[in-house]
């Protein structure tokens, strides 16, 4: 079985090393594999054998913390459960640049090398469609549980990405800050008050998911024409936009500022770590939270499209949805999931969820972010 999956991977585009060895001169390890027609042949052959009885390998691309977070991540449980039920091997791929890795492969004319990607959002789809002429993902068809997905979370009009969980970006604030009676403002306008000068930590929208969601939320709240002025005022009020969520959360934890842009599930972690809840209060500005549903889609050149579809259906099962939600500390994407009590107690949902549709983001996302960056980085 080992040897079979090995051949398979090589045929599918080569994660494993086939003819690995040293060249006499450079000392670097080079892997040689057939391309073009030969590769096609190999793929066909291995697929032929696949149906012959031995279990196939499902290669799933995702982001690192989905399979390997220090707290908890759904990856190991998913692999174990899926493999125990299906006669297949699940292999996680976690390229550093996430979905960009697969876009980059497609741009360079290289096969995707995976069957499925887990962790897409609307912004990524826009980026994919803007940069690739040919389809990277295929529409999800024939899933028995597609109907269970919360209608509002569907973010791909072309039906490629199927949501499997969702999160809300909100403010997390520290009541004990200063004199011990800090209260976060209730509206976006409130953030501009002088009492909140230097009080908010946000993230770079060009490199961080929370930062991007928060920027989009301000665009939704202040309009396409008003958000830059709003950010100019935020900058005036000493908002801190740091590189990534880790930087800003570290600063928040050290008491540099009383508010940080983060997830509305923050208290789940706080409860788990036994932290003071007063330091982990949630604020939905304008009573809204920006929803960022995460989706999965199978690659157009997946070598196991049927198995990929089975995996997607598996991901939408009520018990799997609950596990993903708890382990990824997000909300389920289906209406059928049953969450444990304590999770519901600490994971807060906004009175109203806000999100930009794919159509709205298309042709706008880059421009919005660009304009923001040029405004905010003006010295």
């Amino acid at each position, binding site marked *: 079985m080992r040897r079979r999956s090995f051949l398979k991977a090589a045929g599918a585009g*080569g*994660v494993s*090393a086939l003819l690995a060895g*040293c060249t006499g*001169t*450079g*000392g*670097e*390890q080079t*892997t*040689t*594999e*057939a*391309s*073009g027609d030969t590769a096609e042949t190999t793929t066909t052959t291995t697929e032929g054998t696949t149906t012959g009885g031995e279990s196939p390998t499902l290669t799933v691309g995702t982001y*690192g*913390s989905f*399979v*390997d977070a*220090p*707290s908890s991540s759904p*990856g*190991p449980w998913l692999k174990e459960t899926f493999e125990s039920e299906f006669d297949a091997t699940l*292999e996680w791929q976690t390229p*550093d*640049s996430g979905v*960009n890795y697969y*876009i*980059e*492969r497609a*741009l*360079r004319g*290289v096969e995707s090398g995976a069957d499925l990607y887990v962790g897409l959002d609307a912004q990524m789809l826009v*980026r994919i469609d803007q940069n690739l002429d040919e389809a990277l993902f295929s529409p999800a068809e024939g899933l028995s549980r597609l109907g269970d997905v919360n209608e509002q979370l569907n973010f791909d009009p072309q039906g490629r990405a199927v949501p499997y969980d969702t999160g809300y970006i909100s403010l997390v604030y520290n009541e004990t800050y200063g004199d011990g009676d800090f209260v976060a403002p209730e509206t976006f306008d409130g953030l501009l008050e002088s009492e909140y000068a230097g009080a908010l930590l946000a993230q*770079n929208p*060009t*490199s961080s998911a929370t930062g991007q969601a928060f920027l989009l939320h301000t665009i939704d709240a202040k309009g396409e024409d008003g958000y830059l002025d709003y950010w100019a005022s935020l900058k005036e009020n000493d908002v*801190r936009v*740091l*590189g*990534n969520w*880790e*930087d800003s*959360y*570290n*600063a928040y934890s*050290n*008491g*540099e500022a009383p508010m940080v842009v983060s997830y509305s599930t923050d208290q789940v972690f706080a409860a788990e*770590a*036994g*932290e003071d809840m007063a330091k982990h209060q949630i604020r939905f500005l304008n009573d809204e939270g920006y929803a960022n549903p995460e989706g999965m889609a199978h690659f157009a050149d997946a070598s196991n499209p049927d198995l990929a579809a089975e995996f997607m259906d598996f991901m939408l099962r009520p018990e799997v949805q609950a596990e993903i939600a708890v382990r990824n500390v997000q909300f389920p994407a289906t209406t059928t999931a049953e969450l444990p009590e304590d999770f519901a107690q600490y994971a807060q949902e906004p009175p109203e969820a806000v999100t930009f549709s794919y159509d709205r983001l298309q042709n706008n996302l*880059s421009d919005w972010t*660009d304009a923001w*960056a*040029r405004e*905010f*980085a*003006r*010295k």
Partner: protein
Amino acid sequence: MSRVSVRRVVRVLEQRLLTLVAALTAVVLLVLFYYPVATVFADAVLVDGRPTVEPIAAILTSEFYLVDIIWFTAKQAFYSTLASLALGLPAAWLFSRFEFRGRETLRSLTILPFVMPSIMVAIGFVATFGRNGTLNRALSAVGLPPVELLFTLEAIIVAHAFYNAPLVARVVTAAWESVDARTVETARSLGANPRRAFRDVVLPQLLPSIGVGATLTFIFTFASFPIVLALGGFQLATIEVFVYSRVRDLAYAEAASLAVIETVISITLTAVYLRYEASQRSAGGAANPLPRRSVVPSDWTPKSALRTAGIAGYALIVGLVFVVPIASMVLASVTGGDGGFTLANYAFLAERQATGASFQVKPLPAILNSLAFAAGTLVVAVPMGVVMAVLTTRRYRGRGLIDVLAMAPFAVSGIVVGLGLLRGLVFGVDVLGTRIRVTGALAIVAAHAVGAYPFVTRNVAPLFARLDGRLVESARSLGATRTRALVDIELPLVWTGVVAGAAFAVAISIGEFDSTIILAEGAGSYTMPIAVERFLGRRLGPATAMGCLLLLVTSASFLVVDRFGGRWGEL
């Protein structure tokens, strides 16, 4: 084979060895650097396969990019360089002219900042210079008003000094220790007072190394990125921040153009420095180092008291900038969510090691990989660097260009190199219908060596240049091949430089992130910095614990490199 013919074969090999290593260096550079980088830079000058200047012109005509980004980047790099010199030169003075307990160890540990992942530095700095940090608590304890250092340009500059002052200190210390005491004695005998002798005799011998330190610091801080955003914020964005943003947005033409401009500036500076270094070369004697004195003076004069006070003040600053941030990180690794002491973070590492899935990052393999890659880098980068130094000190047509090309790995954005490695090596190149891919452990070692060997070259070349060429010629006329002359005569005489370069090579390898994560296929080849990044979560504990392991392992390896290296040099 008879003894004589073995001898002959060895001799023929020896005679060609330098050429061979130089050729190999060229191949490694081409495969792991020039080709990958070219695949990215091409986007700046080619649109649909046709050459164009449009993307670069667009940036050079943008006031935003020119003034708000490029000029600002240069400005912060300049200030960072000054700060690094201010913080690093006194250390070089202490390390080379004074004797105190733990001097060798301390000197070995100066390399530590080099390997610290930026998130660790950010954690340490927030804990030290933040609103509730050590500095402000100390200030309020003595009744002084707090300072707001975080999220300012100053914070970035101090952090850059944290990274680069040790670099300055190390290269200048090496040069200072190789100043021949006789040159000073000669100057003194000719009537120069100590200050004058320093200015006229010692300083000129130190300037090339100060130049190296300053140039490298400028180039590194010019391309700084994560630390800028972690401690400054996006309003202080540098070129590299935008390179990264544009790459993430797949706006390659713009990203590549920014990177090209960034590289041109850095390369120009490198070329200017190399010209200067070449003009500074003078024949010098072999090491007969200046005497050291005790930090605590044997007799107290106003002058010696002033000096001791200065040293104490400097020690205080070093404590604040280096020791407290690192100590804060160690503290963070043993602090629980409730603020109490805990070993939970280390327990997490142990548990992950014991029960982690095959696709997850485990601490022990990360440590072993890091050490193996570091050892590999040492073995590859030191010969590469030494041979390049030999070439650099030779005269030939087009040497200036070769020098600059050899130094280019310093000058090109890590993001660009990473993207290039992805395109050129991970995805592979079609050669006659066969796809050649270069990944895995050997590729990582080669990539680390590419980043590390210029350090060896820059540490060794100035010392080489000071050697009398007649030494090698004498050896050769006595029957030594060029390689033997290098090994028997030159290397022992420039050994301090070789060890200094080797330490950098190890540090570069252990600290490297951008290329490693791209070439590390699957979970098999991840290193300590990658583990630190993987263990980052909402709670910093696990990552800081891994960071502490990284510091521990690195410290131990540096003590070994320096001690072993030093001892070997004495043999």
